[in-house]
């Protein structure tokens, strides 16, 4: 059972690795330096990086930025989402603005963010939070709108106080949607993170990629790409698991 379940996903990965090997052999024929893109070179570089401290420091810095960006997005997105879900007035007056702002690639704010916030962590936090706030806001608002009306009736039939209604019905009632928002937000943050770290910072996975390019350490670069993919997969998996756990649907 287990074997069959793993076989198909694994076969996809193996095929991709074969294509990668073939591609790098072909590319090496064109530009000799491309030999260091090859899977074996990359694996060797990855092993060395994993044993050293440097890569881990970059990973830690990146993950911290993800956490801060996500935290800020949650702090802004949940209250705004609740307000949007509860107040038709607020919803109607902000929907065009939010839909507009949501469609602007966060990276296009980068020059402005650096100008206003200076170089360093602040503009990266801003870009990540700005990218992540929309899925959280919109999912929270949808969660509030989809709250089972009977839950609210039930709370009222128990003469629940406002606080009891919020703590025992509304917040847990929208948690599943907030977690959906978090999952989408993590996906977006992880994608925005790397380019956001390519400007004005001196640590993080995005920085490491540029640095590897400048050092002509192409197998390090490929290794970093693998690490980015793997960490992103883990983050997404964690968010998914949290969501399932909450719904007890696992």
């Amino acid at each position, binding site marked *: 059972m287990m074997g069959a379940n793993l076989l198909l996903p694994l076969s996809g990965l193996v095929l991709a690795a074969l294509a990668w090997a073939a591609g790098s052999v072909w590319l090496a024929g064109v530009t000799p330096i491309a030999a260091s893109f090859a899977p074996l070179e990359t694996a060797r570089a990855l092993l060395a990086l994993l044993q050293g401290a440097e890569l881990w420091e970059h990973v830690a810095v990146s993950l911290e930025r993800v956490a801060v960006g996500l935290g800020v997005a949650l702090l802004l997105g949940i209250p705004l989402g609740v307000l949007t879900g509860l107040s038709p007035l607020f919803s109607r007056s902000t929907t065009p603005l939010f839909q507009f702002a949501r469609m602007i690639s966060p990276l296009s704010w980068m020059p402005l963010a650096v100008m206003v916030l200076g170089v360093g962590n602040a503009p990266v936090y801003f870009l990540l939070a700005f990218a992540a706030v929309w899925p959280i806001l919109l999912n929270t608002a949808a969660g509030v709108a989809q709250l*089972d009306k009977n839950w609210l009736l*039930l709370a009222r039939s*128990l*003469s629940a106080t406002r606080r*009891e209604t919020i703590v025992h019905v509304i917040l*847990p009632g929208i948690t599943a949607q907030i977690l959906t928002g978090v999952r989408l937000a993590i996906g977006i943050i992880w994608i925005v993170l790397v380019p956001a770290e390519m400007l004005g910072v001196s640590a993080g996975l995005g920085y490491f990629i540029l640095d590897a390019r400048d050092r002509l350490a192409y197998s390090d670069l490929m290794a970093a790409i693998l690490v980015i993919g793997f960490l992103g997969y883990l983050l997404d998996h964690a968010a998914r698991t949290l969501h399932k756990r*909450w719904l*007890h649907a696992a």
Partner: protein
Amino acid sequence: MNSPLPEPALAIAAAAADAPAVLEARGLSYAHGAAGPVFSHLSLSIRRREIVALLGGSGCGKSTLLRVLAGLARPATGEVRFLDTVQAAPHPRSALVFQQASLLPWLNLADNVGFGLDFAHQPQTAKAARDERIKAAIAAVGLAGREGAWPAQLSGGMAQRTALARALARQPELLFADEPFSALDAITRAEMQSLLVDVVHRWHTAALLVTHDIDEAILVADRIVLMGGRPGRLLHEWTVDIPRNREDHPEAVGALRLAILSALRHAS
């Protein structure tokens, strides 16, 4: 529980006839916003331990009336007395069951049943006493042993049993049920109908069962009130004195069904 005297189930309907009212509504009118009144000058009383079926076509205002009676909506005119006091807010000794079980998916079965018992405006009870009530309510609907189950794992019938247990855990004097079985399949519905009668009798509570199903009203209720007209009013009333189990008395059930159908025809 509330009465020291054990009563045979068959005698309950007759015994209830001169019992004091648990709920007494007089001159109720209600309108949704600026729309015309849903019902006006409507009066209804429910005696202790009585099962009243509120029967009517969909859209005639049954759910709205139930909300007003349950204290969830304020009538434009008239008043609702619950256990002889004018009801300003939902009474702690009344409980609701909806068409959908509406369980809270983040709580397990036992926590759903006990939901809200410790809220600030509920009668204050010790945790041990609450746990005892939750256990008894779960046992009453036949779900003992499933306390730890999650709502997502329950069938429709089991979810509705849990909703019934949630209502029972409040030790209600009056159970408001708004088409509680209409989303269930026919077999589960029949089971739930007899469970409801059984539980209401054993827990010495009264019930107002909103339904649009004539057969359900006849099988379950001690008294049937027919709602209709625009604005809505109570058109007709029948005391159901068919002995239980009523499935065993098809002629009497059939005769009452015809009487109700004919009243419906005259009303429209």
